[in-house]
Structure formats: C-alpha cells, structure tokens
C-alpha cells in the first residue's frame, strides 16, 4: 500500500475541513480527489504532502509513519495549481532545484546532475526549452516544468493540486491524456485534486468523492456513476433525475407506478428519492405498471443523441430529462405536447434529504 490514511482530522479555527478520513491508495495507482469547492480535497492533499499538519489521525507512506514529518522529509512530489515555479531561475535550474538542495553526501556531481535533468526535460517533452524563464512559457509548458521539478526527486508519491485548473479547455484535454500516458510509463503512485468530474473520470483509476470533509464514496468511474452510494454522489457525477417516491415492503411507488427495490439499497421504507440518469430513462409506447406518463416540453438533437425535456405532472418535479440514442428514439419525431411513457431502466433510491 502506498498511502494509508487513518482517521485523519483537520480544523481551521472554527471550520472543520476533514472529519476523520480513512483512505488506502495502492501502489502505482492514479487516484482523483473529487468534490465541490470547500469539501476538503485540497486540505487532504496538503496533509499527505506535509504542507499542513493533522490534528488527529495518521498517514503512512509505503509503510512508514510520516504523520509527524514535515514536507521536506516525506519525499513527496507536489505540483501546485499555479505551478509555483521559481521565476528567477530558468527551466533547467527550476528542475535541478531538488537535486541542488540535497546534502553534499547525496548530491549528484554536475555532469550526473545535467544528465538527470536533461532526461526529465525529455520526459516532459520540453527539449530546447532549458534556458527559458517561466515568464517565457505557456501555461501548459509551465505545468510540465512543475511536473518535471517534482519528478526529479524520484518521489514516493506524486501529488497534484488541480493540475489542469488554470489551463484552457483544449490544452487541458491534451495534457490530461498526456499525464495518463506518463503515469502508465512511470507507475508512480499519484493523487490529484479536481472539481471537474469529467477530468476525474477521464484520467483516474479510482475516484474519491468528498463532501463537507467526509468521503462519500470511493470507486472507479463506473461504480460511482452506476451505483452511487448517496444522492450526493448521484448528483455530483453527471446529470440525474430525482423523483419523489415512497418505499414500502421492498416496493417503490410513484403515483400508480411501481418498481422493485434494487439489491443493496440501504433504505427500507419511507419517503425516498428515485434517482435515474437521463440515459437510463427509456421510452415506451404504452402505459404500464412500471412506467409513468410525461408530456414533452422540448426535444433537441445533440449530435449522436436526442435530448428530451418532459413534464411528468408530479408535484415538486417541474421536469425530467431523458437522453436517447438514435436507435432508442421513438419512430416519429417528437413535438412539444406529445405524451410518452417513461420507464427507468436502472435506478437507485435514497432516503429523501431534508
């Protein structure tokens, strides 16, 4: 196990950033810490790095208890959101920094140092940029310098704080594919923070979803999307329809329609939210016990899929959204005012919040 976190707590004055977090990150894994702003994801990352000190709990890196160690002794590579490059040093010196500050006994000699730095420069594809200063680089290039600077110390784990946050959409997509390939090449255990669910789904092996300083769910993209542990997870990872239903005797009732309770649900009875992804809300011609009627209010072709907004005539649900691929579409073009029957193909239920 590369990173073992037990019951980690952190308060800032009256604000509790983390309430007892437990987390295991495997060797060579690329893990995303995902959550809305203020959920504690950056605090967790900074605690792993040793840039903050924990109020309680423990952190082990590769079996070594580092809870009491400062960042300097943890051997952790940290990439900052705004790069934090040394502006008075050129690219070469920025990257060489981690080697130059080593104690004399372990500091490589100049030729060896040059060789190492140049190897990392090639790794991050910045050949020919060694003499440039940070101000002369684009955002994506600066990010790669920051990454190279962290990699040269051959870190136990690599931590990245919103690594693509400050880049424009095009560069961000390129860079995150590149980071994924780089990770597959180096296999260094990596954790990155993001608030962008697409980024987490696109890059990470597993995702830790945080909310209000607690872990909501840990899993891979499919587990989180298809088997959310809470309605928060369901809502955070993509669009979801929440329908107010009631649950009794393993049966979910919504108006005159009924569905069996999915296996593994935690609620047993009472008021629940029936959560259905737009692409899991299928269309049927005829009314049935497991479908409900809805009136089309808007229908759009979004290139590859059809997106329909419907009014289900349920109290507290102004509209639901359904998405159908070309093959799932009704045979005729839908118009506003058409009534169709909707059948949830896959769904989850959670106790109604508040």
């Amino acid at each position, binding site marked *: 196990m590369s990173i073992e976190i037990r019951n980690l707590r952190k308060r800032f004055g009256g604000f509790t950033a983390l309430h007892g977090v437990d987390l295991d990150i495997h060797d060579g894994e690329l893990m995303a810490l995902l959550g809305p702003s203020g959920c504690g994801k950056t605090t967790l990352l900074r605690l792993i790095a040793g*840039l903050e000190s924990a109020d309680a709990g423990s952190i082990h890196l590769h079996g070594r208890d580092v809870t009491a160690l400062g960042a*300097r002794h943890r051997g952790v590579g*940290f990439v900052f959101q705004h790069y934090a490059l040394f*502006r008075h040093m050129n690219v070469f010196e920025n990257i060489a920094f981690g080697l130059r500050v080593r104690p004399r006994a372990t500091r490589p000699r100049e030729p060896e140092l040059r060789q190492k730095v140049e190897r990392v420069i090639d790794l991050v594809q910045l050949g020919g940029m060694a003499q440039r200063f940070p101000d*002369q680089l684009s955002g994506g290039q600066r990010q790669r310098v920051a990454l190279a600077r962290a990699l040269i110390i051959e870190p136990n784990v690599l931590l990245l704080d919103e690594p693509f946050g400050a880049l424009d959409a095009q560069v961000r997509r390129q860079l995150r594919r590149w980071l994924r390939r780089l990770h597959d090449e180096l296999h260094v255990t990596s954790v990155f923070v993001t608030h962008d669910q697409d980024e987490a789904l696109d890059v990470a092996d597993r995702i830790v979803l945080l909310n209000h300083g607690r872990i909501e769910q840990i899993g891979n993209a499919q587990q989180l999307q298809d088997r959310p542990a809470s309605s928060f997870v369901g809502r955070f990872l993509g669009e979801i329809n929440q329908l107010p239903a009631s649950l009794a005797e393993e049966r979910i009732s919504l108006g005159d329609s009924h569905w069996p309770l999915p296996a593994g649900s935690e609620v047993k009875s009472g008021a629940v939210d029936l959560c259905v992804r737009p692409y899991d809300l299928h269309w049927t011609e005829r009314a049935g016990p497991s479908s409900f009627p809805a009136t089309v209010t808007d229908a759009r072709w979004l290139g590859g899929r059809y997106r329909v907004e419907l009014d289900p005539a349920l109290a507290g649900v102004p509209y639901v959204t359904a998405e159908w691929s070309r093959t799932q579409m009704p045979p005729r073009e839908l118009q506003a005012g058409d009534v169709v029957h909707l059948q949830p193909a896959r769904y989850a239920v959670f106790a109604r919040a508040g």
Partner: protein
Amino acid sequence: MTATATNSISRWRVSGSLPGFGPSLGYTLLYLSLIVLIPLAMILLRASELGLDAFIAKVSSPRALASLRISFGCALIAAAINMPIGLLLAWVISRYPFPGRRLVDALIDLPIALPTAVAGIALTALYARNGWLGQWLAPLGIELAFTPAGIVIALVFVGLPFVVRTVQPVLQDIEHEQEEAAESLGATPLQTFVRVSLPTIAPALLTGFALAFARGVGEYGSVIFIAGNMPMISEITPLLIVTQLEQYDYAGATALALVMLLGSFALLLLINSLQAWLAHRGRR
C-alpha cells in the same frame, strides 16, 4: 530640426497601450528641470566661479576630505546595517500575525515624521556618557556619542523606514507556494530563504539600501547633535558646508556641495543599475 526631434522620439517610443508618450515626457522633463535640475545647475554655476585650481584646493583640503569620508562612509555603513534589520522587521510584520502588529507597523514610519533635531537630541540623551545607555557603555570603554559610531546610529535610525517600506510590499506579494514547493523538494528553511525568497526580495532590498543611503548622506539635523562635530573626526560634509556659509565662503560651500552631489549621483546610479540588473534577471 523639428523633424529630427520627432523622429528621434518616435524611435524611442515604446509601442504600447498607453497613449501620450510625447506630452508626458515633456511634462516630466519640465518638472524635473524646475524642481531638480535648475537648482542643481545653480550649484554648478556657483562652483564654477572658483576656477579649477581653487576648486581642487577647496575640496581636497584635509578637513574637507575627512568630512566627505565620514559622510559617505557612515551613510554606507548605516544603509548596510539597515538592510538586514529592515528585512527582518518587514519579514516579521508581513509574515506573522501578532498582537500589536499595527502599532509596530505605525512606529516604523516615525523616524520619517519626527523632526530630525528631535531624533538627534533623543539619541544624544540616550548614548551620551551620562545617558541611559551611555552610562553602562562608558565603563566598558565604548563611547558612541560624539564619535563616528554615533553618526552611524543616527543614520540607522533615520534610514530604517526606507528599507522596511520598500521590502514589505514585495514580501507580502511573494507567492507562499514557491516556498512550499522548495520545502517539498527537500530544501532546508535556510536554503529556501537564500535560493527562493531572497532573489525575489533582492531588487527591493537594494532600492531600500539606496534610499537609506541617500537619506543618510543628506542627513543633517539628527547627526549634528550626536556627532560632536570635531573636525577631522566626526564632522560631516553638510555641517562643513554650513560652517563655510556662515563664514561667507559661498564658493567653498558650493564646491563641497558639488562634490557631494556628484558622489551621491554616481553611487545611486550604480546601485540603481545593479537593482535593474537584478530585477531583470528575476523576471524575464
């Protein structure tokens, strides 16, 4: 003529988003002339009445040379002392929240606001043989008042705010993340300071040094009380100039003034070039 002038200005013009290079350069030169250059030209004019031989004789008299050595020497030493002290003060004020920080912040400007004579009297009372501090130092054989060391003390006092106030905003703006990055890369706090923080602060620190030095060279009020003003030992050039004015030796006074002026200008130019070079290296 006009065409040439326009031509040469447009050659210098930095094409940027700010309009009005011509008028603003014109105003700058006008005010600089009215307020700085013309008065200084008067000194040159007055000094030139002497003739070269008399001028050299005036400024190279042992008393004049000693006073110049004391003025520039003490100002340089005081500015050098102010660099680390001012940096430390600015560091503490901008980095650590502590009770009474605002008070300390306000106190730092006091030497600028205080009439320099008041500062001189206060320092003399403190360091004189029978003063609060002086009475303890005298038995140890340390005499500060009425020696060049006293001059340095006075100049440290008046020059300190200049270093603090130039360094402080830079320290506040410095990205804390750069220091964290250095720490996570294994740098000790000292390495982080020397390799990361100091290069960022250096240009401002040097500007502070230049300002403190300039203030020290020109300082009069606080120094004359504590210096004792013994010719050849603790007499500063500004005082010598006043003495000569009182003896109606206007030409001699302006000759000394001219030397001070050129010396200060040369040193400031040197420091500013160094500062510009450092700043350029810092953020290319």
